[in-house]
Structures are given as structure tokens and as C-alpha cells.
């Protein structure tokens, strides 16, 4: 079963599909220009040494954004299987 959560809450190596981008204005435009639109699969591939920003893999490239920017992105994820 798929649940939705904010991109900020995703864990490293977790994959999901973008369900909604709630940002407007310049931030929203920038996010969409980079290809973060609903239906796009994203994987969290890492976080910076101070936990913020977060690095994502989507459409064959790597993107970083700050956690407070990740708040605007809602992702549908499959529940994690037996994560330690």
C-alpha cells in the first residue's frame, strides 16, 4: 500500500513517486523546471554532513534542495520493507 509523506521525511535510499508540488512562485517554478513534477520517481541518495540539504536522484541526474524546500513536495512511497 502506498502512503504519502513529505520529501523531508524520506530516508536515504528510499524511493517514491512525486504526488504533488505545493510550492508557488519562484521556488515552485525552479522546482518544476528541474523536473520535479507529479509522476516523477525520486530516490533520496544522501544528505549533507549537517543533514541538510538533501540530495535526490531523478530523471538520470542528481538534484539538491534544502529541507525547508523539500517540505513543499509530497511523495507517495511504498512502505519500507524490513529496514534495520
Amino acid at each position: 500500500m502506498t502512503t504519502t509523506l513529505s520529501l523531508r521525511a524520506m530516508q536515504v535510499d528510499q524511493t517514491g513517486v512525486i504526488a504533488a508540488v505545493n510550492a508557488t512562485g519562484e521556488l515552485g517554478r525552479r522546482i518544476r523546471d528541474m523536473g520535479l513534477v507529479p509522476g516523477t520517481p525520486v530516490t533520496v541518495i544522501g544528505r549533507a554532513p549537517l543533514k541538510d540539504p538533501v540530495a535526490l536522484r531523478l530523471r538520470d541526474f542528481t538534484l539538491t534542495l534544502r529541507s525547508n524546500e523539500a517540505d513543499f513536495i509530497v511523495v507517495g512511497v511504498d512502505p519500507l520493507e524490513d529496514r534495520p
Partner: protein
Amino acid sequence: MNATLALMGNPNSGKTTLFNALTGARQHVGNYPGITVEKREGRLALGGLDINVVDLPGTYSLTAYSQDELVARDFLVNKRPDAVVAVLDATNLERSLYLVTQILELGTPLIIALNMMDEVRRKGVGIDTARLAAMLDTPILELVARTGEGCDTLLGEAARLVHGPKKRAPLHISYGRDLDETLEKMQDIIEAACFLENRYPARWLALKYLENDPAILLQGAAEPETHERLLGATHSLAAHCRKTLNADPEALIADYRYGYITALLKDGIVTRPDTQTRRDFTDKLDAVLTHRLAGPVLMFAIIYAMFMLTFSLGEYPMGLLESFFGWLGDTATNLLPEGLVASLVVSGVIDGVGGVLGFTPLIMVMFFFLSFLEDSGYMARMAYMLDRVFRMFGLHGCSVMPFIISGGIPGGCAVPGVMAARTLRSPREKIATVLTAPFLSCGAKVPVFLLLAAAFFPGSGAAALFWITAAGWVAALLAARVLRSTLIRGEATPFVMELPPYRLPTLRGLCLHTWERVWQYVKKAGTVILAISILLWAAMTFPGPSAERTAMFEAQRAAIQAPSWDNDAARVDALAAIDNAEVQDALRVSVAGRVGTALEPVSAPLGFDWRTNIALLGGFAAKEVIVSTLGTAYSLGEVDPEDSGGLSARLVADPAWNMWTAVSLIAFVLLYAPCFVTVAVIGREIGWRWAAFSVGFNTALAYVVSMGIYQVGIAL
């Protein structure tokens, strides 16, 4: 016949590499008028045509919000290049096509160049370019810009396109029923009113209204009637979309564009090997280089290594240049008759410009490494790792490089540092970075610190330098925090940034980038700096000493020359003492000396007398001048900043100096107005009002801090 060919593409798609491959040495770099976005142009002879190739700034979209993107779009729309080459990173086809669809919607004649095909092939990915070309009705060429593979085919195609019609039918993407209906209605309004029609296709214009594009809305407002009708249609659609779909039209447009691209790439245009290894070279490298613990450690090691290399490699050519200017000065002294002209040429022109040009090797090496870090993709990782820290002070992850180059490690220089702030795309963070970078302890301030530390804190020069460097960082970060919450207030710019794959830069590209920046620096030295050097020389020379003072020194000399002296060495010493006394005397009555004396009431609370004041005024020209001017003012003749032992002893012995004067002076030198080369660069990068602000603000801050230190110190 002339024609224009524009290169467009995402950042890091290899546009500039292609540009270099196409135009070779026949290129030049400037700025777009009034802004600091770089403009590269080159010439190319092609089938009897003289083609002007323009490398537009990297952009992800034609919906412009940053200056780079606005430049790229305006060029496309207003200058109407005869053909556009869209340079795409073929390893990242999907996102790259987002820009392509927008260019196609505009109807500009286009060639799509799929760059980095070698990487695509190595990964075993297949792209059916012929079929994609047919679907987009646009020529698509495979290219490896680094090696030049495919460039000839590209030129052939470009020649064909340049001779062809200037327009093609704009691409028509469906944006869903609601949007399409409104778009058609708006198109009718636009066509009926001939609204801005010479510049944009009607549907494209309607789309820009729906996207709320500020630049287009501003143009449209010139024709209020149509503008209002279009806005009305936009608003009612926006209300409808929000009610039924809970989304803005601009979001829907982006969704549909990506939907169109996904549909294009479906059914076998791109084939991937079944067992695709997700962890390619970049991922493996990133696992180490951006690791939570190893990443920062390696980053500091890399920065430190770069610094050591810069100074050890830069030292030798710098020494050569210094000797050259020394030789030039000596030659001029011998050739010219003694007098004002000789003094102007030697002290004003050769010393002034030579002092600035002497930095050229350092700047060259520094920019070479900087270009390497940038072109290889590592710079983006540094920004990623440090963004959290810098954000607390209202800066951006990308501010780290300008800070380090400016003197984050002692020995930097704010001139290349300020220029390095160009990598910051956000205006507010860029201004804050540029204004605060000069607080760091640049290489020219270090001799002053060492002199004072040696004199008043004997044996602890290294520790003093460490704390002064730390103080520079604290001052820069705190000042940035203050500026960002007062004068340059505003939301932090989004940190939506790509981490490009690691790539080995081409030597040619690195050399070209380095040369461009060094040349800008040298040009500045030849103009602004020359003028200010001459002004400063005049201030320290005129008006010369009165006739009776000169006569007095002559009489003293004559007395020594008298044969009663039998010890040659003693006579030479005595003559030198008189020469020095005369120089000090002349300095005291010069304009600079009078200003220095007049400033004594102002500088007394900081513990500085007229001699220090002149040195600080000279330090505005270049901080290196501080030590040598202090030498002159303390009648020691020329003092080599590298060897200031005699001056140290003199300062300690002078009753006007104590430990707190030294600390106060250190703080003042660290913080006060940047040298004029830096001010000139700041003026060019962010505007002359900010440059003036930087002089005033830094000096005021230095004054307050030094006064605090001195007053508290002597009260203790």
C-alpha cells in the same frame, strides 16, 4: 553575409566546450551591458558566411527568473539568431528536452546537439536519434564536444539552416482541455489586436501570460486594453484550475510539457541495458567525497592543497615579475634625469601598476584551480556540504569559494575572491558575499600583522596570525548576518541545485577560462589602477619641501662631506640618516602628510598618529603599502615588507606605541576599506553604489572596533 548562431542549453551540458571547439581562438568575453552575466562571442567562417557564434548562459527554462535566464531568453526573442543549437547532455535527455520544447514552441530554427554521446554509449544506453528527430521535425546530431566528434556535421547542418527560412512553425503541445480552450481564446485576442506580434508567436505569448512571466507582463502592460483582457482570461482560468484541480496553470503547463516529453521518449526511443549499474563513477566518488565525516575533512584538505599549490607555483613567476618591475624602475631611474618626471614614472607608474600586476601569476594559478574545481563538478559539492552553515549567516553554500580565495586561509586576495562570487546566481546572497569577503585576511595584510605581532607579541607570530584569520571569518560572517537582516533583507534564495556528474575538464577549456579572467584583471590594472597610483603619488609628493628646508639638509650633507670625516662607513651612515630625515620631512609637508596630521584628532581615540594615518591612507591603494609607508614615515628609508625587523624595533621603542595600539591597528587593517583594486572589482560586479558603501561601511566598522579595543585596552 553575416549570420548569428546561438548556443543554448542547461548548465553543465558542455555548451562552452562546444563553443571553444567551434570558434577556437577567435573569441572574446565581455559582459552583457549593465549586468555581470558573461557574454562569450566568437567568429566562424562557414561556406562563405561570416558567422557570429554566441554562447548563451546556461538555462533550464525559458521562463525567466534569474538574470542568466533572462539574458538567454531575450537574446532568443529580441536578437532572433539565424539558428539555435540546443546543446543537450544526452545522459540526461528527459530534463534537457524541457528547454528544447520551449524553444520549439517559440518557432526558432533549431538544431539539437546530443552531447556526451561517448558516456551514453559506454553505459550501453541506446538513443534512436533518427526517430526522435522525425517526431520533433528537427535535426538531431550526435556529438562529443570534448573530442570534437560530430562538430563538422553540426557545422554543415548549421550552414543549411542559416540559408533556410528564418522561422518554422512553432511546436503545438496540448495542455489539456481547460488550458487549450483558454489559450485559443487568448490567441484570438492577441491576433485581433496585433498585440506584441512582431516579437512573439501568439500562443507562446498566451502561455507566458498563464505562466505569470513578469518580464512579458511588463511589456504587455504597454497596451493596457489587450493586456487587461488577457489578464482577465488568465485569472478566470487560474480560479477554475484551483477549484477543480487544486493547481496553478503554471504548474499544469510544466506537467503537460513533461508529459509530452515522456510520451516522446516512450516506445523504444531510449533503450537501457537490463542490468544497469546505478552506481556509476560519480556515485562511487560521491560516496566518499560527500560522506558525512570524510567529506568535510577531504574538502578542507583539497582547499588547503589548492592554496599551498597556488602560492608555491605562483611564487616563482611572481618573483620574476617583481624583478622585472624592479629592473624597469632602475632602468627608468638611470635613463631619466633626476626630478619630478623620474619620480612620477618610477614611484607613480612603475611601482603602482607593477605592484598590482605582480599579483597576476597568483590570480592565474588560483583561477586555474578554481576553474578545475568548477568544471569538474566538485564546487557544487562544496556548496552542498556547507550550505547549512552559511545559511545561518544569510549566505549561500556557493559563498564558500569567494571567502576562501579572499583570505579564508591567510594569503588570499579579495580581487579574485570577489570575482569568484560570480558563481552565485542569487543577487542578495551575492551582494552579501561580495561585501563581506574583503574582511578576510588577504595576503597583503599579512605582512602588517606579522610586523606588529613580531614587535609586540614576540615569538607568537603564528598564533597571532591564526587568531587574526579566525577574527576575519567571524567579522565576515557576522557582517553578512547583519547586512542580510537590514540592507539586503529578503528570503533566502532557493537551493535547488544540480550536482553534475564528475567530469575531467579539458585543458583547453581551463586555460581559456583562466585567461579570460586574468585578462580582465590586467586591463583593470592598466586603467583605473594607473590613474589612482598617479593620484596617490601626487598626494605624497606635492607640495615639495620649502627651499630653506632643502637648503638646510644640503648644508648638513655638505658638513658631512667635509674632509674632517676619516671613517667612510660612518659617513655613509650619516648621509643615509640625513636622506631619511629629508624624506620624512617631505612626506610630512605633502598633501598626504597634511591629511594625516589633520586626521590625528579623529585617529587619536584609536591610538594612531599622523604616520600611521598616512600608512593607512596608502593602504587604501594596496595594503602592502602600509609597511613601506610606515618605514618611510619612521625615517628608515625603504622597508621591505618581508624583512621588517628594524621597523619592529623602532615601533617598540617609540613612546607613541604600546600593545593596545598594535592590536587596534591590526583590527583596523583587517576591517577597513578594501584596497582600490577590490573596490573597482566590487563596483563592476555589483555596482558602484555598493562599492562606495563598502568603503564607508568597512571603515566605519573598523573605526568602531579599533576604538573599542584601544579605549578598553588602555583603561585596563
